[in-house]
């Protein structure tokens, strides 16, 4: 049963907060401080729900997603943006199908947990080959 969550954010307090929330919900959190770290984790086999910040230095959230998809690391993950930007700009064009949700900071911890749990159930849904 996959209970894996990854937080990708350059702010340590944000990461710490999400850690605490996940802990209270008994979810496993992997922390990444940048898009590069996120990709490393994915290369090493992480699959789960990814909470992705948008505004990060060097590589922003959109570039990270494009890189994920490009390297074939997207499958098996659900990506949820977690950002201080109220609305996405046009850099998101073309990535709509890869982003399942968009949460703005600051967020309600309970709402976050509920969403994470729902997305995890989606990931854990068994798929029969002939049902596709």
């Amino acid at each position, binding site marked *: 049963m996959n209970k894996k969550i990854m937080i990708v954010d350059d702010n340590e*307090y*944000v990461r710490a907060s999400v850690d605490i929330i996940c802990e209270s919900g008994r979810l496993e959190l992997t922390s990444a401080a940048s898009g590069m770290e996120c990709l490393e984790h994915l290369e090493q086999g992480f699959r789960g729900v990814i909470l992705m910040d948008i505004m990060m230095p060097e590589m922003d959230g959109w570039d990270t997603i494009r890189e994920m998809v490009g390297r074939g690391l997207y499958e098996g993950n659900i990506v949820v943006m977690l950002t201080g*930007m109220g609305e996405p700009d046009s850099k998101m064009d073309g990535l709509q199908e890869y982003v399942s949700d968009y949460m703005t*900071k*600051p*967020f309600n*911890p309970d709402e976050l947990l509920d969403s994470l749990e729902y997305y995890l159930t989606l990931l854990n849904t068994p798929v029969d080959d002939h049902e596709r």
Partner: protein
Amino acid sequence: MNHLKMATEKVPILLLITAVAIAFVMMVANRLVLEQIREEAVRQATRQQESSMAAFWEQASRRGNLFHIEDGRMILGDYYVLNGSNEIPDRIFHITGSRATIFMGDTRIATNVMKADGTRAIGTKLTGPAYDTVFRQGMRYRGSADILGIPYFTAYDPVRDASGKVIGALFVGVKQSEYLARYKGIALKITAINGTLAAIFVLFAVLLILNRRQSEREIRTQLLFQQHLLDTIPSPIFSKDALGRYTLCNKAFQSYVGLTREELIGKSVFELWPEELAQRYYDMDREIMEATGTQIYESQVCYADGSLRDVMFHKASFRDEHGTPGGLVGVILDITERKAAEKERSLMEAQRHRSRMMESLMIQLNHDLNTPLTPLFALLPMIRRKVEDAGVDRMLEICQQCVNQIQGLAGKSFDLVRISSERPRLLPVNLAVAADSAMGDVAEALAERGVICCNAIDPELKVLGSAEQLTLLFKNLLSNAARYAAQNGKVVLSATGWEDEVVVSVRDDGVGLDREHLNLIFDEFYKADSARHDLTTQGLGLAICKRIVTNHDGRIWAESPGPGLGTTIFFTLKGDGSGDAFPALYDI
């Protein structure tokens, strides 16, 4: 213009004189030529008479050689009586065409010269110079003579008898008029032709003059129009000749320098302005005359009315076809307004730039605030859940409030900037729905104080606006009303349509406002509570409302009967023109 006047007067006269002179010369030449021809004709006539006379003598000699008078009869030869023997003269007439007469003494005895009644002039006498020459001087006479009052070309030869005494004469002659008839015919023709030519010539001259007059009129009209045009152009225009004297100026130039046209034309700068200034102008003009193309330069000048203006000079020299400078032309453009507009534009541009910077700063700030707010928002509730101590819980509650306050400020400031920067597209929006949406957002705040909100806006009413901003507008108004409504009171939303304008009202039954606050409440960061103690509000709500209403071309104002008697906020929006007046559905 003056040149033209002079030309107008001189030239046609010259032309006319010339034309007349030529006509005159033609006539004179004509006359001379005709004279020549006449003389020649006369000469020829005379010669012809000579040969006619010779023929006469020859005829006579056929009948005899000597003449003598006997018994009052003139006898030629032995027996030929000449008296009444018209056949000799007739024969001469027949051969030569000249009339002939035989005179006995000075009397005609045989002739074919006719009297006026058509009979032969037998018995008439010879008179005049011919008589003198023949009978007194005994010589032949050649030349013109009058016979019976009619001019003839004549030849008279004396007839002598055997002793040599002149006893008679022989005459041949032609009527001048007959002889000259042909000449006269020719003369007439030639004269006619000449005359016609001369007339045509003069006619041409006249036509030319008329044409010229016409052209001059047109040129004059053109010049008048041009001057009028120049005078209408508000920019001062002038021209100078090669010596620097003003040749042309328009009204605007006159008011620019403060001189009349009469005072300007023909004068150079030295006659009009102080030495130093004039010298400067002169030097500049010289430069321009040397150069090709138009010189454009900006300057500041003082007009005659005393005003200092920014101007642009456009000056160009003009040359004639040989390339020698003919003068220069100048136009002065008053660019004071343009410069002022440019300055204003750059000011506005700077302002816009500043607001754009402010905007990006706000967006950045908003984002940066949200980052540290995140852990606070996320963790405070969780901490509170773990805490049992009421005192600690109270502390945490205060922290939570503060954090909410910060978030509210960040969000509202951001809203304010966003609303100010974009004018939304105004589309038909269902007003009641926008209100409902807002009511949903504020539901919690309302419920907290037990306030009931009633949406009495006609569900069919549509206004022109942005649904997004209108919902935000209602949200701010409702949260305001929620705050100030009486505990367990109510807030009523209604709208009435008036032609193209819809007036919306949000009424609460709460604390109310006094006069002085009614206008101030729409200012940014204003709080009716002067100590600004109320932490739950940032004071931006109504400022945002005002901005939104302005974006929708409407007005917003507050009314209150007084403290404790509730407040109503009114604002106007544009109707979408689809309906008549919409009275409030019901008024609770």
